[in-house]
């Protein structure tokens, strides 16, 4: 079964109530992301990028509106189904890498497969392949503290792809990396996006991300300001 849209949001809103004040982190966001697309969500800090990331990733419940992943309304899922969704359908990449510090690179990549019930030999084989694919074939048994920031993020990307998800959600994946390493990570994600056909959604304010994105969603004060394709952005630069 193939779906045209991997992610769809409908009047998505998230309000935080701080005493008498209401903070509208998201306020009526409608976006549709096609299968295999590479979409960047751009905006200044506080624009609602991370909140949108949490909503699409099934990590938090919206105040209003709906999120569809592969045309399934995820607000209808119970806790068990949500865990399954996070395990099989979505891969997460974070700004701070978030590897489990007590586990090796290989064990970190295998962890989602343990939850998915993949047999041990198969787990080791697949995790090794993924780590080789991201260029860490010689770092399988290293703990996160023995890896550089860029290497840790590569492990995190391999882990995000562990169960062959429909989407990889990346929240500021280059935020803690230097310019050069950041560029390597961006290019790696773009290559994997093409290779595996996995949909990638990144929340970022890294302008380097524009070059590889199919579309850029500009978010401001919890609303979609505009959506541009890469061709349009390039045209703007040339003017």
């Amino acid at each position: 079964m193939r779906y045209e849209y991997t992610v769809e949001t409908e009047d998505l809103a998230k309000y935080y109530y701080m005493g008498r004040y209401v903070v509208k982190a998201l306020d009526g966001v409608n976006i549709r992301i096609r299968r295999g697309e590479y979409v960047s969500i751009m905006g200044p800090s506080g624009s609602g990028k991370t909140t949108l990331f949490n909503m699409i990733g099934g990590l938090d419940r919206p105040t209003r509106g709906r999120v569809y992943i592969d045309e399934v309304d995820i607000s209808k899922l119970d806790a068990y189904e949500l865990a399954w969704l996070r395990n099989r359908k979505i891969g997460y990449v974070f700004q701070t890498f978030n590897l489990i510090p007590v586990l090796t690179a290989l064990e970190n990549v295998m962890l989602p497969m343990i939850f998915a019930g993949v047999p041990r030999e198969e787990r080791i084989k697949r995790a090794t392949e993924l780590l080789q694919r991201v260029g860490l074939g010689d770092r399988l048994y290293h703990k996160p503290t023995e890896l550089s920031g860029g290497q840790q993020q590569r492990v995190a990307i391999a882990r995000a792809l562990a169960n062959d998800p429909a989407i990889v959600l990346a929240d500021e994946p280059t935020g803690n990396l230097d310019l050069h390493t950041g560029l390597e990570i961006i290019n790696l994600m773009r290559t994997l996006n093409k290779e595996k056909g996995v949909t990638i959604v990144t929340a970022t304010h890294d302008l380097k991300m524009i070059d590889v994105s199919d579309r850029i969603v500009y978010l401001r004060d919890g609303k979609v300001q505009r959506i541009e394709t890469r061709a349009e952005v390039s045209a703007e630069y040339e003017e």
Partner: protein
Amino acid sequence: MSVGEWEIGSIELPFSEAFRITLENIRKRFVRAAITTASIILGIAFMVSILMMSQVQQSATGVVEGIRAYQYWLLFISLLVSGVGITNSMLIAVAERYKEIGTMKCLGALDRHILTFFLMESSIIGGIGGILGYIIGLIAAIIYGAMQFSMEAVGKALLSVGLLGFNIPAVISLLLASVILAILLSIVASLYPAYYAAKLNPADALRYEI
């Protein structure tokens, strides 16, 4: 089970994998685990020494005094203090791992898996604390007995039958009691921290910075 076009499969955490990750956790965060263990050791050592000393006294004097009410009261208080120490230590352990818990949930962990990790950790710590507490308490009682009475009385007391209502030598019944009580105490004291960790909303857990 299916939702829309999806076949919702199972989410698992085999016991062996949970156990392995828990051991790694204890090894890597040794200081935290050691502090929690110390809390158990103190409580159990106190219990063992009080019970054993009264046993030595009995075998030396031949007077069956039993354990006085105030000693039970002391025991109760010491185990309570020990339990509060464990709860405190486990709450800090949870706070240290907020982000890890959030990440685990992103990777597919269910609430009960998080609960399993923390309770398994506290049972292991409880077991180790129980054994060490037993050894320390016993040594203290033996030294006390040998100095106050004689080694002979100590030996008789160690092998005497009937302590705590068990029909086995005191030296073994005390070990069993220490380990079982330490594990139970550790689990009960960790219930709230573990439950709190399991119920964390992943978005909140990820946001947390230390």
